[in-house]
């Protein structure tokens, strides 16, 4: 695979090992296509989350022993120690599997990222609050109670607030690590629907919480097994005509 224009991120021969000695990624090379939903599929322990956490260097906080290779964001290697990780994390936002709202009001959660960046202009903040809540399909439910504690929201609302909080930072890439694993089907649907709209503006990388979700959402799909990228192609191809036996077996539920 060669680096081309529409590759927002290019993972170039990346290997990673945690200090407990378990090899987590093994020579992975794959692109992340701009303005698409890029799905990373596979059983747990396969290295999807580890790769995701390299994209925003959140793995810096974990006990990583060894990283090799390059992760190019717009052609620049983010694994370079010189990278400004603060800037990187504003550009590459992340939604986690647990909807962790910060212990503050809904509004304060939303503008948290902007305040960190020193943005104080009230007009800009107001604007951001409204747009990000509309984009994450939460506006109608919370517009009258922005000063309430974020803990008062339901699980699904919390997760959409987490998404809105990422959007408020005006990122270029959004990483989602099993964002709907704790949600009911209706909330899950809402999140999936917002992703379809969001991909027009953002590049989306999703670790789905089920094979079915991968099937519903994937424009492009990578299948990971025990640290190895088994197969990468369009979502359509992976789900109708996978090259590798193991991919087919996993998708049809024969293991995992």
């Amino acid at each position, binding site marked *: 695979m060669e680096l081309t224009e529409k590759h927002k991120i290019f993972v170039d021969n990346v290997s990673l090992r945690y200090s407990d000695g378990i090899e987590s990624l093994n020579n992975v090379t794959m692109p992340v296509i701009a303005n698409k939903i890029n799905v990373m599929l596979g059983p747990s322990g396969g290295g999807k989350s580890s790769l995701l956490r390299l994209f925003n260097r*959140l793995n810096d906080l974990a006990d990583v022993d060894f990283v090799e290779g390059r992760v190019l964001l717009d052609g620049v290697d983010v694994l370079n120690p010189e990278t400004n990780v603060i800037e990187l994390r*504003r550009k590459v936002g992340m939604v986690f599997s647990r909807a*962790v709202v910060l212990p503050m009001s809904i509004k304060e959660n939303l503008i948290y990222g902007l305040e960190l960046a020193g943005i104080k202009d009230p007009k800009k903040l107001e604007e951001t609050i409204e747009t990000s809540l509309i984009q994450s399909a939460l506006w109608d439910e919370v517009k009258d109670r922005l000063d309430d504690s974020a803990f008062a929201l339901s699980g699904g609302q919390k997760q959409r607030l987490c998404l809105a909080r*990422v959007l408020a930072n005006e990122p270029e890439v959004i990483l989602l690590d099993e964002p709907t694993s704790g949600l009911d089907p209706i909330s899950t649907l809402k999140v999936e629907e917002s992703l379809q709209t969001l991909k027009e503006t953002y590049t989306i990388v999703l670790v789905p919480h089920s094979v079915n979700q991968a099937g519903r959402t994937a424009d492009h799909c990578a299948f990971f097994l025990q640290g190895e990228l088994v197969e990468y192609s369009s979502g359509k191809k992976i789900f109708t005509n996978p090259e590798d036996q193991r991919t087919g077996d996993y998708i049809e539920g024969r293991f995992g």
Partner: protein
Amino acid sequence: MKSSNHLIRAKRIEKIGISFLTGITTLTIIPIILIVGYIVYKGFPALSWDFISDFPQNGMRDGGILPAIVGTIYLTLGTALFAVPIGIGAAIYLSEYANDNFWTRAIRIAIINLAGIPSVVYGLFGLGLFVYFLNFGTSILAGSLTLAIMTIPVIISTAEEAIRAVPQSFRIVSVSLGGTKWQTIRRVVLPQALPGILTGVILGLERAAGETAPILFTVAAFFLPRLPSGIFDATMALPYHLFVISTQVPGMPIKIQYGTALVLLIFVLGMNFAATIVRSRARAKREW
């Protein structure tokens, strides 16, 4: 049949056991009630506006205990001035920044051991370092520093515990939104840990306020018929004053002794009460 007998016996034993435990737990509060009750009973008649606002008179056998009260307040504030920033700073460093290596483990062990050192040893240390070597003399400065050294380990351990209790997920989210480590600590971790930190601070200061041995050689005056005029001045203080009037002055009216004890008790228990309120209010408000 046999097993049902066994069951009945087991239940009976459990009942006896629970009654026994309830009994001894109840016993533990009896001394507290007796001590507080006795001191209030004996000391309350001495309490009056004059008692807390007047200077001692007639060789301390009469009048009030104003200089001792003021001295204890000054010493508590002085202790807080040194112990609170250092204690909280060290707790932040140890819980958020320090790597787990030989040095930080050594520091932790030192802190645990510092908390176990007898207070009279702190007093001697303060005498050597602050009074003589640094030439502060017997002064509020020397006394506050000595009490601060004694208080810092308490504040560090409680503050560290409070900081560690803040869920890791908050930190990860903050960092993922572009927060630096310090921004994360200041905006998320510290506000959430604050009630716990405050509780530890109050409890540490409360202990300092009630101590006699550390101030014995470093600041406390036997009798000083005026208020201290600066940080290099000696002062009277409640715990030491109580010791003096209980053992060193012949013909001392019992009433004044217990009155002084009661004032000290109110001071210390008042701080304890404040800590309890801070803690329970924070617990009711906490959402995680």
